[in-house]
């Protein structure tokens, strides 16, 4: 199989997956007697108004008709219109996604930058003091719910110590948000060298990012340690040691062999974290896509929920394709063979 065929096959595989997710989501949001018309029209609307609105929104059509119309529009990149905001869903997502990515990517970078070396170091001396401490931190990150971690963080660092700024969004009331370029207040403030906005948005990033980094780092530590332990106990490493190679060289060989599974794991974790970040956004009033998605689910905003789930699915698909490409570049023979 050539590289081109490999990539084409990966991209084509994404299409039925997305179609399946679209169908399941479309069906699930309509389970039961959910009907947003009563909420949209308000509690005092009469019967005729409810019926008119239902027709206008296409909710009087059959499930299959509605699904066919939806898929037809999706092909033209029309995700529909949110009944709550009255905006095209794609516009709402575009407005909210940068805030989520800002939080997610920075936390991911920190989590991986800490988690991978800690996992590798733990694996060098299993059950040593460092390993025990790392495993405790990892267990903590695993077992403590995100929202509790966030609330405790706010209680200690904002409420008790006063070190963190108020958890009221991405920028302070005293700062003027920078012109929208990337959607990240921090980066956009840097771009226009607005130091007051840089400080305001930067300080507001610290606590949620640190909390999320712990959540992100915990599984990375655990998996990196397990992968590294497996690699370090492999025959080729024992052979390398027996051949008298220096510990540094042995570690380098081990690292190179552990890198691909670690990268695959980190990437797969990233796909799940975009959904997980919603709780953190809720608590820190972050205003990102997760918070928007939660709200859409609560209000049965059909188009918005479908758009949210589809965006998560697309995000995952893109990440997996990128991982495949990265693995292909790192290990071309084994990847193409697989």
């Amino acid at each position, binding site marked *: 199989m050539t590289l081109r065929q490999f990539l084409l096959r990966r991209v084509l595989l994404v299409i039925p997956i997305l179609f399946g997710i679209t169908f399941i989501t479309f069906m699930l949001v309509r389970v*039961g*007697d*959910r*009907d*947003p*018309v*009563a*909420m*949209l*029209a*308000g*509690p*005092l*609307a*009469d*019967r*005729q*108004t*409810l*019926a*008119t609105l239902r027709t206008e929104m296409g909710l009087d059509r059959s499930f299959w008709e509605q699904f066919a119309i939806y898929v037809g529009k999706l092909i033209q990149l029309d995700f529909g219109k949110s009944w*709550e*905001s*009255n905006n095209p869903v794609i516009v*709402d997502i575009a*407005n*909210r996604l940068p*805030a989520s990515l800002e939080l997610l990517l920075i936390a991911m970078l920190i989590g991986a930058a800490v988690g991978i070396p800690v996992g590798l170091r733990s694996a060098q001396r299993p059950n040593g003091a460092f390993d025990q401490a790392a495993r405790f931190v990892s267990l903590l990150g695993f077992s403590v719910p995100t929202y509790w971690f966030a*609330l405790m963080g*706010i*209680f200690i660092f*904002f*409420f008790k110590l006063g070190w963190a*700024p*108020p*958890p*009221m*969004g*991405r920028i*302070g*009331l*005293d*700062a*003027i*948000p920078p012109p929208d370029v990337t959607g990240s207040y921090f980066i956009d403030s840097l771009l226009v060298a607005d130091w007051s906005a840089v400080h305001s948005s930067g300080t507001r990033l610290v606590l949620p990012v640190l909390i999320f980094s712990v959540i992100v780092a915990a599984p990375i530590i655990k998996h990196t340690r397990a992968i590294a332990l497996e690699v370090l106990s492999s025959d080729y490493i024992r052979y390398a040691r027996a051949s008298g190679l220096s510990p540094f060289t042995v570690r380098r060989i081990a690292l190179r062999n552990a890198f691909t599974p670690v990268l695959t794991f980190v990437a797969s974790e990233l796909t799940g974290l975009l959904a997980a970040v919603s709780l953190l956004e*809720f*608590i*820190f*009033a*972050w*205003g*990102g896509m997760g*918070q*928007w998605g939660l*709200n859409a689910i*609560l*209000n*049965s905003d059909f188009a918005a929920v479908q758009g949210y789930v589809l965006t998560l699915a697309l995000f995952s698909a893109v990440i997996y394709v990128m991982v495949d490409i990265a693995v292909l570049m790192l290990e071309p023979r084994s990847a193409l063979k697989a």
Partner: protein
Amino acid sequence: MSIRSALLSAVAGAALVGASGLAAAQDRTFIFASVSTPVGFDTDRWLSGTLESAVNVYEGLTKHGVKKDASGRDVIDADKVEPHMAESWTQTEGGKVVTYRIKKGVKSHFGNELTAHDVVNSWDMARDRKLVGNFMITVGRVAKVEAVSDSEVKFTLGTGNNIFPRILTTIFPALIDSKIQKENATADDKWATKWQEKATAGFGPYHLESVKAGEGATFIANRNYFADKPYYSRVVYREVPSPATRAALVKSAQIHYADQMPIQQLVDLIKDRNVKVDSVPGTGAATLRMNPNLKPFDDIRVRKAVQLAFDYEAAGEAVFRGLGERSWSILAPAHGEAYIESQKVNTDLAAARKLLSEAGHANGIDIQLEYTDNWWWEESLAIQAKDALAKAGIRVDLKRIPRTEMNSRRAIGKRDLPFFPHLANAFVLAPAYAFYLSAHTQGSSNVNDYKSPEFDRIVDEMIGETNPARANQLSHEAQRIHANDSTFVISHFPKTYAVTVPCITGWLWYPHDRLVWKHLSCTERRG
């Protein structure tokens, strides 16, 4: 950063960008944290934050008087309607024609003066759109609205009635600056509803300056407001969805007001010296409603048995944490002399079992209670009901359903829920309106489909009754009929709470249950 430093910075920021037309010395910012950023400002379309904002942007031609209650606090006087944007009115043809004279100098933020044409335009919009405003047209029996001159507007009513003057105290329909509205109308959208999602043009005390989805909105004082200038010239409406975060923010004086706090947080906040928690019972009581058209609730003995088996004391303690106030009627005590304690039901398990046995359910009965999360107390009240009713042999199967399913099944034309929690809040402080809303055959909150021709007849008569003594007599009768039919398990008023920093004074409860910013001020300096 404390409120004080935030205010200073905000003032500096506002001055820099020229955001406020008021002198810097008068600039004061009020920070209001709520669950969600206002999604729209159209009072015909209630979305997140719409009413919280709109009650501060729009006002009525009239207003309710304010009186002192027994504790010396200012409260709305249900019986008194006073001039507001209208300076006077006259009634002819036995109250069927009412002409309002609009005050001179009532202007929007854009400088346009309120005219009779604005009023007509707003009512025309309500009639055309057939949403909330249209319900007011129906219940107020408004047949025609005409501009007699620029400053006089004539309402012709189907029948003279006592609900109509009170409707004019509300923002339904909202009086919009029609010049601005028309500038923003399009061929497809003649009422500029799209524009109303992101903008306001009222004659009330505040005007929307900016809104950003997911973050919040900023309101500034209407620079042309005709009445007293509000103390706060700027209101920052911040989205803080987590109640725990809102609690931490108000405790640390980072915000002035925490909106929609759940009971668990309130119990703690009441004990906190850094927070002031004020409350009023309001007009909406937490109820469990039984649909008398569906089995087994078509048998009044079963309904009465459910009422008697419910443990009101336990609900007061476990659900409302001792903060609620027991309710004894379909009507609230806020309605003054129109109110009587018509449904004095207390727990009596023996009587409940006896009634069930008489109804042919000697071995008990299985019922389903469906609930959602429209109100914070729903789930705990449902659990409490399950536990209490089991003691009388009423086995309750709890079923949690999505909010949209609940709302659609309660809507006019469907109403197929046998047993479920509900709370109806009457925005118009008139007993006839409350009855019409909650239990009249045409009432939009008659969600358990209660049908009583006698009750309807009395309510219809009440609407047209302008003699207060007779109206009160009818009100008492209506309450008795409704209580005898036993379709509500009436628990407690969950109450409306104002959670503020201690310096805030001037909170005045309105029937719409939203915070009115113009009355607020800060009476002490905080560090």
